């Protein structure tokens, strides 16, 4: 939380209690897709909602030659749908400028520094700088080293922070090596590893649901919970990212970050406060408690697959191996299902089933807590068959909300039981649209609140869990993965995985 807030007595009691200091955001890779699709629209929305500080500026850094005015013109289309008036854009555009240069050339950074000092001098603001690396990861090392060499990691009286986009490494070794590069130049508290999933309101609501209500906590453990399912399903395929995805795969692209982050939020102990480190300490403890899957256990507890040609919503779709940029003999997975156990008092013996994949029937992200059945069924043999265990489902997207299923008597003399669902939909309680994930995260980074960002130990621990799986896959030399037709819920091996314990995947 911002210390500044407490130092400005006039901020007290205002509705917007979190307020960033005057600052400059320097976007590396300013002509790229992320800048256009996410970053600038998010900053523009923050601006029109009056959430950016006085004297903020955005400096785009990229290789291509262009003027400030060309840069602004190109970004106009990115914000069009949020524009309420031309004057909104004119005032926002005045804060945008462009710096042309090569990230790998150390001399460019002296020029960058001078440019920043000019900007700051013109506006009489402190040298608070937020560096956003919206570049391919291969550029990270060179940018970070050059920033350090130019003395920009510590910007004198102001602050310097750096936001790094995933992937943070491709295995434990490379993650450690990247973290070493970062820590040569920046202190950990200056580093904001972004996982946009954590910026989603409903992901944050998991913590509120668990820790602002007292009725769920007593049953949130091995005594009442039978198992937990976490699903992150996408309907899209590679979307032109074939080359990138071939080197990555679903385990690295989604499980290492989004899925394990959801696991930590649902399984963590209550933090002592909502302070960044208190929350992240508890999340790391969950990752530390994950029972390692040995290489020998991988085939038993992990399933991977690739989508095959099929049809989705009435449209024929090609298979993974036919996608552009994909090796026809590729063994890169587009689907993963994993069973994990947590070795701690709360969760010992409760299996956590995680599944994620591309070209599945629905875009849905959900955490489902399956509770144990009633210890004795007193309503006769029919009821035993009809009664279902309670399921508490935390839906993250697209239909954010919480639903609880429970058994209810069917009206009439038959004594029949039927499960019914009680739905709470976020949108039916709060008509306001929640802010986009990037808005929240950019604002937090400007304020200096790292709660929703991944810490170095979280990042490395997550890689440590997955490394034996990656190694076993590497060593097994299997070239043909289980297939699942586009528009289905993954290969049949995924059903077998969960059936080992007499369970089945929740129908979504």
């Amino acid at each position, binding site marked *: 939380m911002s210390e500044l807030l407490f130092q400005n*007595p006039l901020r007290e009691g205002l509705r917007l209690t979190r307020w960033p200091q005057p600052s400059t955001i320097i976007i590396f890779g300013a002509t790229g897709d992320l800048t256009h699709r996410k970053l600038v629209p998010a900053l523009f929305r923050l601006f029109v909602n009056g959430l950016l500080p006085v004297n903020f500026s955005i400096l785009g850094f990229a290789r291509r030659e262009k003027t400030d005015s060309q840069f602004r013109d190109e970004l106009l289309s990115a914000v069009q749908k949020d524009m309420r008036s031309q004057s909104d854009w004119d005032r926002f555009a005045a804060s945008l400028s462009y710096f042309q240069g090569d990230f790998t050339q150390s001399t460019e950074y002296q020029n960058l520094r001078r440019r920043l000092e000019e900007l700051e001098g013109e506006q009489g603001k402190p040298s608070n700088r937020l560096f956003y690396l919206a570049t391919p990861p291969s550029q990270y090392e060179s940018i970070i080293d050059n920033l350090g060499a130019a003395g920009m990691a510590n910007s004198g009286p102001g602050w310097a922070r750096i936001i790094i986009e995933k992937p943070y490494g491709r295995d434990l070794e490379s993650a450690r090596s990247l973290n070493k590069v970062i820590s040569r130049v920046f202190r950990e508290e200056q580093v904001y590893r972004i996982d946009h999933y954590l910026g989603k309101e409903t992901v944050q609501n998991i913590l509120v649901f668990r820790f602002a209500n007292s009725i769920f906590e007593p049953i949130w453990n091995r005594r009442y919970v039978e198992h937990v399912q976490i699903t992150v399903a996408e309907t899209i395929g590679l979307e032109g990212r074939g080359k990138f995805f071939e080197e990555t795969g679903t385990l690295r692209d989604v499980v290492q970050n989004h899925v394990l982050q959801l696991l930590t939020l649902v399984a963590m102990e209550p933090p002592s406060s909502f302070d960044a480190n208190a929350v992240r300490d508890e999340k790391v403890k969950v990752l530390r408690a994950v029972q390692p899957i040995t290489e020998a256990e991988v085939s038993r507890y992990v399933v991977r697959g690739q989508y095959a040609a099929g049809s989705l919503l009435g449209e024929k779709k090609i298979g993974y191996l036919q996608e552009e940029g994909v090796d026809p003999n590729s063994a890169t997975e587009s689907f993963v299902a994993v069973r994990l156990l947590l070795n701690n008092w709360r969760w010992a013996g409760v299996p956590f089933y995680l599944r994620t994949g591309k070209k599945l029937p629905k875009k849905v992200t959900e955490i489902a807590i399956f509770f144990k059945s009633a210890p004795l069924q007193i309503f006769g043999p029919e009821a035993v068959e009809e009664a279902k265990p309670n399921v508490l489902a935390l839906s993250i997207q697209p239909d954010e909300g919480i639903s609880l299923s429970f058994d209810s008597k069917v009206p009439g003399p038959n004594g029949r039981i039927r499960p019914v669902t009680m739905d709470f939909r976020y949108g039916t309680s709060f008509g306001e649209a929640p802010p986009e994930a990037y808005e929240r995260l950019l604002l937090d980074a400007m304020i200096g609140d790292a709660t929703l960002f991944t810490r170095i130990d979280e990042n490395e621990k997550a890689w440590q869990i997955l490394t034996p799986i990656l190694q076993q896959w590497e060593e097994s030399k299997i070239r043909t993965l289980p297939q699942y037709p586009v528009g289905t819920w993954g290969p049949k091996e995924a059903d077998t995985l969960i059936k080992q314990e007499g369970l089945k995947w929740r129908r979504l």
Partner: protein
Amino acid sequence: MNAEGSTQLPGQPVNLPDVEAELTAFWQGEAIKSKDEAITRTTTLNLIIIVEDENLFQRANQAVPQLAFHHPCRIILALLNPHIKSGKVEAALSVFCQLSLLSGKQICCEQINLQVPASARQDLAGAILPLLLPSLPVYLWWPNWSYFTAKEFPGLYQAIDRIILDIPATFSSTKALAGFADQAIRLSSDMRVSDMGWARITYWREAIAQLFDSPNNRASLQQLRKITTLQTKKNISSAAFLLSGWLVSSLDWKLPKQWKASNGEFRFRSPNGEETGWRIATKPEKNLDGLYAIELASDEKDQIRFMASLRQGGLLEIETWRSQTLLHKSAHSVPRQDDDRLLCNELDLLQTDEVYLQAIKAVKALLKGSLP
């Protein structure tokens, strides 16, 4: 209004004792229509609106759709109709649902309209209390000039968690403004108090606070000696008083024990014992009405001044000056200020707004010295 002085209530007329039964029947009908899915509704609060004239009743009724969209709730809209001398409390029901684009789900709201004859004013609690949904906060929107007191509304007074007042934009006398401040302070000992007038000046407070976010400027807070508010007409502007009350209490300026305001100027002591003051200046400004600028200034040689001024086109300009040099200038859009929206925001809050209370207490203290 019809011939007997009674207002046609919107919705389906219903006997007051049958309201709950009618609503239950309605939702059961909906459940049957939806076949397999259990019907569940989210309700976040009870909102009581009590108005004393038909214009306010129509205004409140028009605000309901937006309120309901942001806050699925039960609304009890009561018109205390002075034109009906006797008779029973009349009731009418409406239930409306709106599709949320966010969730694709219906957001539903139950609206119970009541018309209470002048003679039945004392019966209002007996009409409203049975209609409140249990375990949910009770908000009262009180947009009237008159006072809401435990004596006049026994039973109902105790049920309110938060009252939303609406300070008039101007007052005919400082006595009337002091009366309003008095009411807000008195109510705050029994319930939480909001004020739509306070919400309307939030953007001024945001802009002024923003000036002092930078550490350099923050140091100047200690050096501030003069507040000047500029308004278009010579009148008692509640916005000017609330803003000054807020600044005076936030900066911890104290009034001397014996004092009297003169020529629209109020004198204080800063925490360091320096003399400080607030001056109300009147200067017509084309196309603007009411309070349009506020200046905060130090009085040392190398004077620093902070200005926030409304401009045409819905902009609020803020400037920082040292001596005669402009150090910084920026412009902000004045946010959309319609009352329905502000009221929606007020319903988001349940906690006590201590800063408002301090500000209104400061206003009351100021007025003590200026009252005849």
